[in-house]
């Protein structure tokens, strides 16, 4: 099974308080921010790794190609990170600026990459932790005329990705779908649960370790070193036949209001109710 995993680099959401907007409030400035792999993409990368390995034998049985569309020169740090975790190959598409890479452009670029790479599955983040638009996956499927299943919580295949049984946990219950590849998936964080992925190769009783607060597995030095020898190809917009053209215009960015920073502890529920009435005046 061959899976394409798109990876975006985003300003570390853990340091969201460092984000600033420029003077005319039409742009978020990235100065001094630490870039990390979009956490939602990390979930999908982990799911893709589990779909393409025999976890009991720690052996890879499929292929993962990670693709990153990166403003400017084409930063490959996060592709390397994914290669360290087990992906086989990387593709970097240096293109424009962050503002120019809206969901429609991203979907067009990814569609062009899919046509060249012909994966069985595209497994992508449900959204990017910066823009939160959550449309690139669906747009990509539309361009490819492929089925799309968003917010997958379980993915199972027993025929190397020809068909899948996918679960989505919704407010009204669990939905189970059968879908034929090639297909676009986006994943929910529940995809990281120890038993969310079945690939017909890893024994069904194999238990993945709980990842805790991690968004994907860690890579050790051996894998980091091995990743340095894995190929990363560059594909330009010319190669892909895609033109930048922004469909989205941002009118204004406003930073969230700072927290007032005062917290008070109360001993009893009565005291809490009283304070909510007399001081906070919300009851």
């Amino acid at each position, binding site marked *: 099974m061959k899976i394409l995993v798109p990876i975006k680099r985003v300003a570390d959401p853990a340091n969201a308080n460092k984000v600033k907007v420029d003077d005319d409030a039409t742009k978020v400035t990235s100065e001094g921010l630490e870039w990390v792999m979009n956490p939602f993409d990390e979930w999908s990368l982990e799911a893709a790794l589990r779909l393409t390995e025999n976890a009991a034998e720690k052996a890879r049985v499929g292929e993962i190609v990670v693709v990153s569309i990166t403003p400017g020169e084409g930063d490959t740090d996060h592709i*390397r*990170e994914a290669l*360290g975790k087990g992906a086989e190959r990387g593709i970097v598409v240096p293109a424009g600026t962050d503002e120019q890479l809206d969901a429609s452009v991203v979907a067009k670029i990814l569609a062009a990459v899919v046509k060249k790479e012909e994966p069985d599955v595209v497994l992508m983040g449900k959204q990017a932790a910066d823009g939160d638009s959550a449309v690139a996956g669906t747009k990509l499927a539309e361009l490819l005329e492929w089925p799309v299943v968003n917010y997958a919580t379980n993915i199972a295949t027993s025929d190397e990705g020809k068909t899948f049984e996918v679960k989505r946990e919704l407010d009204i219950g669990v939905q189970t779908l059968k879908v034929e590849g090639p297909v676009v998936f986006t994943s929910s964080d529940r995809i990281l649960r120890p038993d969310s992925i079945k690939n017909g190769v890893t024994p069904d009783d194999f238990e993945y*370790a709980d990842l*805790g*607060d*991690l968004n994907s597995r*860690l*890579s*050790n*030095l*051996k*894998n*980091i*070193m091995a990743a*340095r020898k894995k190929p990363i190809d560059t594909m330009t917009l010319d190669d892909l036949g895609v033109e930048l053209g922004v469909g989205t215009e941002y009118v204004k960015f406003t930073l969230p209001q700072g927290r007032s920073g005062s917290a008070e502890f109360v001993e009893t529920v009565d005291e809490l109710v009283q304070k909510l009435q007399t001081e906070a005046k919300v009851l």
Partner: protein
Amino acid sequence: MKQRRYLFEQDEHAQLRAEMRKFARNAIAPHAHEWEEAGIFPRALYAEAAEAGMLGLGYPEALGGSGGDFSHVLVAAEEIVLEGKSVGTCVGLGSHGIALPPIVNFGSDAQKERFVRPVLEGKKIAALGITEPGGGSDVAGLRTKAVRDGDHYVVNGSKTFITSGTRADFVTTAVRTGGEGHGGISLLVIEADTPGFSVGKKLAKTGWWASDTAELVFEDCRVPVANLIGQENAGFVAIMMNFVSERLMLAAQCVAIAELAYRETVAYARERRAFGKTLTGFQVTRHKLAEMSTRIAAARALTGECVARSLAGENDAGLAAMAKNTATDACSWVCDQAVQIHGGYGYMREYVVERLYRDARLYPIGGGTREIMNEIIAKTESY
């Protein structure tokens, strides 16, 4: 605040740091205070550290390690300290770093399979036993006796201050198999389930609380000859070689602890107000912080130089001793100033700097005291 790195660091060190940072934030930091107060961390952490690739660092892949060298071990330990914020946990997890090298360097293939691999997999815990109640600095004078009896050595004596001693599955132990002096010392791997081996007591310490430290007792403890590392009576060289890397490791821990104390203090001084301004509003505080970062940079530079030389094959015991003393002093001073800038909060147990201040006191003692370092320097300078 600038994030300073060692001059020897390459791309892969940055990637390794990033992975170790995630591991420490996820698996250690949330429990740091609890484990330090409890005086122990869960045994299950060894397996997690193995899975995260921490335990295997610096060991060959053929033995189940994740490769790399000493430089990788040091930067990983630094991240574990900086992000895990529990020095005791870091040093407890790392006790194999002094217990395994003699086996890797001088042991047989069978011994490596038996002892090294399960430790790197996080299944067994290893400790190093050199120091005795009667003396630690004078290694050549150690008295734990091992007398050959057929296929066994019969060991009698005791060891103390042994890191991970209460739950180690085996102890790489220095024993006297021959006559007086350094020519009569051997290294035996003594397994905890050997009849005659017992853990005397868990010792209560100034710092390093999450790391257990024990006294070990050997009473007619019968150890198979197959557990002898290298040649009989040739253990002293292995012990001395081990000390050089241990000292660099301790120096690097000092750099990391000082760096953490400094970061905590800068953050605190930016927030805390006195006389209508933040503490960083006082020139005296800014200068103190500047001095702290200067001493850390100096300690980092010398430690880094020493590591680079050692990796290039230059074994300079004198320089390693200098690095240990320099880093130790920087760490002790920085932690003391960190407490001072925190005021009363710096004396309170829930503040990280209070704990670091106590942790720092070990370093001029463990792994060879400051005086012994000066002896080594004096000897290598041949005065």
